[in-house]
Every structure is written in structure tokens, then in C-alpha cells.
């Protein structure tokens, strides 16, 4: 078994990528992701990782190089954040449509303006519809574990979709904490070599990415959508296998103290740990509060989610991104829509918190749960509220 060591989460992620025996890394440094690719470039330069590190002039080129690389059958990794992710935007849609399983870690950071290098989920929520598998890590251990899982799932022949592992910028990326890195032998057992059925090979020429005329575009998209939904089973299976090899169990939706809960907070990412502390405090005060955390965001784990919130009176969804002019934050609108057809559904209230690095404290979570209690009796006036605004 691996050893428990103190590691900066970014460095641990780079070590995990190395253990996945990647062939190609193409990346452009951007705060707060830089330590990941910096460490990978060191590993390659020192001869500790036998891979091609492609230095590029922008994130647009980074992801383009990744697509070309994975199309030839090379295991490929990249990482970015914020404006860098936004610059990749037009290429991101192409990867899943061509079934190119790149793995990317996004160190989530706010988008400009105002310029902010700090954490929120604005960057990734702008990429909600790109068709990549998307997970959110709660802590350093999970960040590392999700990287092994991402390669395992993405490259599975039944899946063949790219995957993003989201880690909160700074809050996770720059944190030194205990992490257990597995032995290489375990990783090798979990992650077989990448063997795509079709790849770019001069000896067996084929075309990727031709024009989709109106007669076939819809069918191509339908096929992509079906395949993406089917990936769900493999995602679960890969977590089962993960447990067998590494001993840690992961599910698409996690719940905390949800037995008999009437109010629950729903969140994605590392703030769930702070929220748990808030839940403990409120439980001590006799309030029946629980916590739901989405680990898997795309494909959305609809059935598991509905099961997790059954019996609740109010679900308080905490968004870390704003969708101006919408009826809620991205997670809030998604969850309302998911529950609309469910009989006896809880009332969904939506809070926007923790934008651009604003700290969300235990007290903030308690306040949101308290407001949720108020909304148990009376409908909120607005579809969403922003928390912690200095007025």
C-alpha cells in the first residue's frame, strides 16, 4: 500500500499523472494551476517521466496539441484555469464529438473582470455544455484519486470521452495536507494501457472531424449524447474497481447526516468540508440539517441525486458562480429542473457564495441553513440570493 505523506495537492496531482504513465503533456502555465504543469515538466526534464512535454504559446494551442496527440493513441494530459480554460473554449467541444479522451485538471478560478486569480466555479460553469465528464474534488486525496479514475473511465472503449477533474484553486491546489499516493503496481493494475479502436496512423489512414451536413449532424449528436449517458455505468463501475484496488470508496453523490434531515445544503468542491462542520454544529443544536455533495457533475447523476434528497423539505443549493439574468446559479437551475417532475420534491432555494476567493465560513453555511428554515414556511421572493455581500 502507498504511504501517507505531506504533499502540496498540485504536486501530488502531478505525481499521480506520472503514475498514470502519460505519453504527452501539452500545457500553458496559469495561476493557480501552474504548480501542476511545472512539476510535470520537471519530471520530464529529469528523466523521471518518459513523456513528451509540449510547450505551447497559449491554452488554445495546448488543447489543440492534446487533441492531436490523443488521436494518435497517446495518453494525454493538460491542466488550466480561468482565462486559460476560456481560451480553450472552441476546441473543448471537439474532443468529445471526436471521442478523444484527454484528461484535464482545472484549478477552478474566477473569470475576469475584475481580474481575480482566486477561486470560484465561474470558469468551469461557462464550460458546462462541452460534453466532457466532469468531477469535483473535496480534498487532496480525492483530487489525486479522481485523476486515476478519469483516465480509467475516459479511455474505456465503452466511453471514449474526455474528462475534467475540478479542484478548487488555492483552497486545494496550494494546500499541503496528508495524501496517500498508491504504489505504481496498484496504478498499473487499475489503469490498463490506452488502446483506442481507431487512431491516426499513417499506415492505416482515416479521417477525423469531417463536415457534418444537415442530413447527419443531428444523428451524430444523438449518438454522442447516448454514448455520454451510457458512460454513467462505466463511471460507477470504475469507482467500484477503484475501491477494490485502492480501498477508498467513491460515489457520484455523497451524503452527510441525511438520515431524517429536513433541510440540506448542496455543494460541489472543497467547501463541503467546511459545510460538514456547520452541519455538525447545527445537529448539536437539534436542527435536522444534512449535506449533499455532487462529486459527478457531468453526466448529471439524476437518479442518485433524486434518491439522495428524498424526504427533504428544503434543499439549499450553493452555487460558486453567477449566471447573470438567469433564474438561478448553474447548479441551482440544474437541480430545480431535475426535481420538477419528482412528486413530493423539496423546495429548492439557491444561494450564490464564495465568488472570486471570498471565504465561505462555517457561520455562512449556518446562515444559509437558517434561511432555508425560514423558506420552509414562506416562499423566497427572489429565485436566488447572494451571500456575504458587503452593503
Amino acid at each position, binding site marked *: 500500500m502507498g504511504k501517507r505523506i505531506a504533499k502540496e495537492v498540485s504536486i501530488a496531482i502531478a505525481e499521480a499523472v506520472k503514475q498514470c504513465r502519460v505519453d504527452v503533456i501539452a500545457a500553458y502555465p496559469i495561476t493557480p494551476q501552474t504548480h501542476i504543469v511545472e512539476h510535470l515538466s520537471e519530471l520530464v526534464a529529469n528523466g523521471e517521466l518518459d513523456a513528451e512535454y509540449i510547450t505551447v504559446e497559449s491554452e488554445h494551442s495546448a488543447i489543440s496539441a492534446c487533441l492531436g496527440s490523443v488521436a494518435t493513441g497517446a495518453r494525454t494530459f493538460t491542466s488550466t484555469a480561468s482565462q486559460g480554460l476560456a481560451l480553450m473554449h472552441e476546441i473543448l467541444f471537439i474532443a468529445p464529438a471526436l471521442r478523444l479522451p484527454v484528461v484535464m485538471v482545472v484549478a477552478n478560478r474566477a473569470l475576469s473582470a475584475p481580474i481575480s486569480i482566486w477561486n470560484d466555479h465561474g470558469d468551469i460553469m461557462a464550460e458546462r455544455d462541452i460534453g466532457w465528464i466532469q468531477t469535483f474534488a473535496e480534498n487532496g486525496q480525492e483530487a489525486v484519486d479522481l485523476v486515476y479514475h478519469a483516465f480509467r473511465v475516459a479511455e474505456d472503449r465503452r466511453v471514449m470521452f474526455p474528462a475534467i477533474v475540478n479542484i478548487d484553486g488555492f483552497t486545494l491546489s496550494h494546500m499541503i495536507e*496528508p495524501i496517500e499516493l498508491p504504489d505504481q503496481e496498484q496504478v498499473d493494475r487499475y489503469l490498463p494501457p490506452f488502446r483506442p479502436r481507431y487512431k491516426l496512423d499513417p499506415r492505416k489512414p482515416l479521417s477525423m472531424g469531417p463536415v457534418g451536413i444537415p442530413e447527419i449532424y443531428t444523428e451524430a449528436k444523438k449518438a454522442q449524447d447516448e454514448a455520454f449517458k451510457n458512460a454513467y455505468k462505466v463511471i460507477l463501475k470504475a469507482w467500484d474497481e477503484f475501491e477494490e484496488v485502492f480501498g477508498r470508496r467513491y460515489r457520484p453523490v455523497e451524503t452527510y447526516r441525511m438520515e431524517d434531515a429536513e433541510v440540506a445544503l448542496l455543494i460541489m468542491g472543497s467547501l463541503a468540508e467546511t459545510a460538514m*462542520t456547520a452541519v455538525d454544529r447545527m445537529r448539536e443544536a437539534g436542527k435536522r440539517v444534512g449535506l449533499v455533495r455532487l462529486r459527478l457533475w457531468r453526466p448529471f447523476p439524476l437518479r442518485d441525486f433524486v434518491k439522495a434528497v428524498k424526504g427533504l423539505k428544503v434543499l439549499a443549493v450553493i452555487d460558486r458562480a453567477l449566471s447573470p439574468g438567469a433564474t438561478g446559479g448553474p447548479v441551482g437551475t440544474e437541480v430545480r429542473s431535475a426535481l420538477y417532475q419528482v412528486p413530493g420534491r423539496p423546495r429548492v432555494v439557491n444561494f450564490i457564495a464564495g465568488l472570486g*476567493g471570498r471565504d465561505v*465560513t*462555517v457561520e455562512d453555511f449556518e446562515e444559509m441553513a437558517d434561511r432555508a428554515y425560514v423558506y420552509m414556511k414562506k416562499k423566497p421572493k427572489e429565485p436566488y440570493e447572494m451571500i456575504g455581500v458587503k452593503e
Partner: protein
Amino acid sequence: MIEVRLHGRGGQGAVTSAELIAVAAINQGKYAQAFPSFGPERRGAPVQAFVRVSEHPIRTREKIYFPDVVLVLDPSLPSIVRVTSGLKEDGWVILNSHKSEKELREMLGWQGKMAVVDATKIALEELGLPITNTTMLGAFLAATGLVDQGYLEEALEERFGRLAEKNKKALARAIKEIKIYQ
């Protein structure tokens, strides 16, 4: 859970000190988090770093607002930064200074637990540089006993290789020369 805030100047190794405390605590079987003040940092400017150490898994990602221990690496900082801000009443302020207890208490307006060592002098003599982060780790050990000296020395060895010896000497001198005012 014990929360520590370190004050230094960019380039003095406050973040490294925070990391070394966390490494020692984790290798000792405890739980810990170490992190910088998130954001851009400039050489010479006042910076902060943070550590949490606990016997149990740490389940918070909040910033540290009310530290139990404040460790100040640079002697010029207490006059320009309120280093005791948020410090718990029964907390420790650990300073690098050659000043007297009275002078320091007047400057800080702090009546609680205080530990003082002239770390700049020790660092200059032992390392030949006014880099006080490892010396101040000795002061931190002497005042709080939060981690074992052996584990901290191991962390130093892992981090500094052959330079570790000098740093260990500086650390040991701080333990010996520290003045503790309860």
C-alpha cells in the same frame, strides 16, 4: 485543533516553515494543513502563511481568523503589522527580536503568552544569512511543543539535504536561547 499564523517577508521562508511544521505533524501521524496567503507575493513585502495541526482529520477550508499561535520571523514586522490581530487570549506570540519584554509588550499591547529569541543573530552566526525561518522553528518548538523535534529535524533533512545540519544547529540554539514570558 491548533491554528498557527506565520508572519514574514517575501523570500524569508514563512511558507517553507509552515510546510515543515505540517510535514513533521503528518509524519508523526497527526493531521495538518499548511497554506500560503493566497495570491501574488513580492520579495520583501509582508506575507503570511498558515498551519493547522490536529489529532483528527481536519474538516474546514476556512481561512484562519483566530490563531492559537502567531510566529513572527522578521523583527521589523511588529511595528508595521498588527501581528496579534485575532490571536486567542490564551494564545502565543513568538517573536524574533533583541528587544526587552517591556518594550515588546508596549509595542504590541499584548499581555498574554510571549516567547522571544534573537533569531537574526543566531541565523547570521549559524547560517551566515539573516534567513530566520528554521531558527524560528526552534522557538516555535520550545514555546508550543506542538510537534516532536525529531520529526521536525527529519523534515529539515528532507528539505535542505546537506544544508540541514546548519539549520538544525540554528534551531537547537533557538530552543536554548529562547525567553519565555507567560
